[in-house]
């Protein structure tokens, strides 16, 4: 299929806005309107507002943060994305974007949670191509405050980086995909774009004219320069540091040697994922009392607690009830409107 649905994922500060923006400048279509630029991205995010709204809505329903360290969050987001109404909405929107375009770029900080959903929805009209930007976690983890205004400890941020990289890779295994190392983007952005385009057979690369290439070159953002921090500066736990460094080294090497799809790399990443789940479960169970005290009555989403069975059932039941209540209220309102019955319950047509 000639159409290409290009999905650009990665952590904040990993170059996703730059990369998506470059693809847009070089002739790929970023669905309009785009998210307005601000201090975080003075040259623009390269993001479609519709996509951001869609993802935000799903994340709220799933009870998952944009950067969330919980392994369980992946099934929670998959669950909401699989709902028929969500799938149908996405399918229709994608089809409309490909009406007059053949290369469409989707980029959003929340995208990594929904990659399988985009594949399912997109593959009827286009070939989905997944591009992940990789940057060392020391350049991603902020001192207490993320670019999205949340306040998460660097431990939590490091853990969510590990979570997103490991599961993001797993969710695109077997797909047409490429990894762009931030270092490559910094050294020679045009080459990085050309190489990944060749790998993914993105034919738009033959079309850009000089004015478009100038526009693409002008997107380089000096604020993404390396910060040269060390782990002790951020007070991240050494077990997380060790795991984060291993995850980065494995992906970095795979990207450099173009071996991301090789079996040994997949095995190594599977092993890292298991170690991460073990570490997270250990941390979560150890902190169970703190969690319970802080979030009494709210679903935790932890697989350790789910093993109890009854708690998970109660959580799910509560969710289903709340959802049903909301849907019923909407249905009743719509029925009343159609039949002309006013708010007080009387027909407006008399009788």
């Amino acid at each position, binding site marked *: 299929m000639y159409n290409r649905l290009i999905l650009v994922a990665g952590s904040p500060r990993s170059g996703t806005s730059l990369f998506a923006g470059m693809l847009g400048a070089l002739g790929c279509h970023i669905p309009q309107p785009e998210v307005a630029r601000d201090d975080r991205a003075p040259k623009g995010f390269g993001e479609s507002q519709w996509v951001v709204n869609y993802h935000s809505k799903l994340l709220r329903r799933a009870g998952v943060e944009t950067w969330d360290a919980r392994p369980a969050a992946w099934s929670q987001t998959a669950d909401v994305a699989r709902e028929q109404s969500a799938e149908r909405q996405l399918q229709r929107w994608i089809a409309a974007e490909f009406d007059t375009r053949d290369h469409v770029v989707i980029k959003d900080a929340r995208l990594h949670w929904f990659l399988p959903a985009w594949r399912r929805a997109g593959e009827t009209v286009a070939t989905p191509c997944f591009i992940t930007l990789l940057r060392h976690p020391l350049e991603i983890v902020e001192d207490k405050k993320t670019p999205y205004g949340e306040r998460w400890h660097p431990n939590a941020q490091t853990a969510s980086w590990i979570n997103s990289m490991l599961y993001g890779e797993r969710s695109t295994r077997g797909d047409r995909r490429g990894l762009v190392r931030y270092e490559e983007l910094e*050294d020679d952005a045009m080459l990085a774009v050309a190489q990944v385009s060749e790998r993914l057979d993105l034919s738009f690369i*033959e079309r850009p004219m000089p004015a478009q290439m100038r526009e693409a070159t*002008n997107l380089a953002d000096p604020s993404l320069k390396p910060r040269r921090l060390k782990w002790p500066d951020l007070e991240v736990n050494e077990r997380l540091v060790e795991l984060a460094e291993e995850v980065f080294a494995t992906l970095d090497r795979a990207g450099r040697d173009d071996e991301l799809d090789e079996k040994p790399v997949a095995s190594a990443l599977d092993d890292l994922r298991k170690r991460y789940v073990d570490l997270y479960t250990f941390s979560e169970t150890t902190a169970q009392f703190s969690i319970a005290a802080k979030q009494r009555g709210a679903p935790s989403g932890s697989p350790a607690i789910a093993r109890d069975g009854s708690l998970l059932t109660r959580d799910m039941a509560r969710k289903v009830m709340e959802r049903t209540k909301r849907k019923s209220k909407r249905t009743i309102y719509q029925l009343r409107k159609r039949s002309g019955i006013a708010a007080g319950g009387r027909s407006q047509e008399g009788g």
Partner: protein
Amino acid sequence: MTLTRKDFINLEQLRDFEVRWPDPGEGMFTAVLRVKNESRSLPWVLPGVFRAADDVILVDNGSDDGTPEIAQRVAKEQGAEDRFLLLEYPFDVSRCGTEHLGTPPNSIHSLTYFYNWAFSHARGRYWWKWDGDMVLTEAGERSFDELKWQLEGLDAIITIPRYPVYVESEDVAYLDSDMRNREPWIWPNRKESFFVKSFEWELPVWPKDLPYFLLPEWTCFELKWLDADEFTHWSKSSFEGTIRTRRKAREWEVFHAVSEGELPFGVHRIESPGDKHVIDVLREPASARYVLDR
């Protein structure tokens, strides 16, 4: 926010070839020609450039046919020695195409770096990028003269139409009127002006939102000698790959067709009356009819 140029050192750390951007100097047009083995074309190219430009910089990249000596001779003949700067760039430079794509832009071997280094010596108000095989017509020289006062109160990008001319002998040449190329060749020398890497070759960047002016149709033509290999500066023979390289594909086609005695559509055979070189005939205003009557 537009990028601005910065001083920088090459990847190979060769300090004698650092890029250092000087303060602007006097004069409107500084012409910069990057050449390799153009001794045959320069006697046609340089006189017009010396007449039109305030300063001329010629950067020789490893010629072995006497190019630098020819350039110095022409500068002397034109009385332009004090306005002429000859520089040497003694490194292999990647050819246009895949070789260029695979070369880091800050390597001494990169076309991009080569251009930045060459232009970092140009101090006129406008940079005039020119090739060692492009001949200004008489009408073209007049246009430059007019631009000198027309641009006094304005910064603009000047685009120049260019046609290929395939030279068979002193008396015969072939003009391809079907292959017009319009490109910006002159732009302001400001802090937003420098070169970046694009997919097949270097790409000039400049201040945003400047107006574009187009010079007349018969301003210049590009010499292609039928008894020489005109495509050594490309790294692959097939040019059909992209919109950007289709011009090269047409040149390849015409070059080989006229070499074999064929005349493709749009190609005119020009013959000198005998008292002057066919290139001088083409420089005259009357030759504009070949491209204006297309």
